[in-house]
């Protein structure tokens, strides 16, 4: 990678703006000098740990919700049709609530993931 920006005709800064632009650049570099690079590295590594934990939690949550729904709804409906058992009816309702919870969980995760999805162009 060439280190010198290739000069383009008309690219040069007008003299009357040079001092202003240099002051601005100086300010910006001064801001940069007050920020600890270690924080950036740590934030990235911490975020990776957080994301892994969230993904793991999500996988477990979905697995539990699916299990509850398949066992709860399917199983309890089967029991209910044969016994008229009130408890089976409650289980069915709980299973349906779990399904709704899963949907909410999905929405939550997709909104979280959306926040990281803007490295546009790649």
């Amino acid at each position, binding site marked *: *990678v060439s*280190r010198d920006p290739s000069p383009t005709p008309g690219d040069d800064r007008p*003299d009357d703006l040079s001092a202003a632009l240099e002051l601005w650049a100086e300010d910006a570099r001064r801001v940069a000098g007050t*920020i600890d690079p270690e924080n950036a590295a740590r934030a*990235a*590594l911490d975020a*990776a740990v957080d994301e892994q934990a969230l993904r793991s939690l999500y996988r477990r949550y979905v697995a539990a919700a699916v299990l509850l729904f398949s066992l709860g709804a399917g199983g309890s409906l089967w029991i209910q049709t044969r016994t008229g058992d009130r408890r089976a009816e409650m289980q069915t309702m709980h299973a349906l609530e779990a399904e709704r919870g899963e949907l909410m969980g999905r929405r939550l995760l997709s909104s979280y993931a959306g926040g*990281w999805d803007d490295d*546009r162009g790649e």
Partner: protein
Amino acid sequence: VPGPSGAAPRRAPTPDRALQDLWVARLRGRDEEALREVVAAFHDRLCAVIAGILRDRDAVEDVVQETFTKAWLRIESFHGDSGLYTWLYRIAVNGCKDRMKRMRRRPACSLEDLKVDVATATGAPAVEGLERRELRLRVRAAIARLPAKFRTVLALREIEGMAYQEIADVVGLNLGTVESRLFRARQRLRTLLMEDGLGPIGGAT
């Protein structure tokens, strides 16, 4: 590093493409040391460009952290069409855009805000001539009044010292649009400075 008067600014050396590609491979292998090397190589210069676009120091720190975090988490989605250098700046510029969207409801900065920013948060020189200090504040106020799209290309050119084609790659515009945007940005800045009573300021000390 400022260039000679009227010339395009020079920039600090950037790691060559082979090293950038090596970093990408190591980041894909979840090599934490590679992440630290990338941060060491790009942190300060990314911060400076972001600081040119956003005025708030905390926002600058947030965006630079997000930039490295996204790069670390999303390295698998990096196709390598451009170098790591360009990709990082693209993420940073998009991070600035998102930050500005969130800040849009906040009132525009006043000269008083800028005085506080420059004197404290940004660690402006404690000993600085009054005239130069005032000039610094006025320049900063004028830059803050530029539309963000102008500030962005100006920051990439004047602070980072990118070539036009590199700016085009970062902001996703064609070369001609970048050239015309930079030209208009400088014109607008000149107008703002003149409206503020500042003519040619090359002689300020």
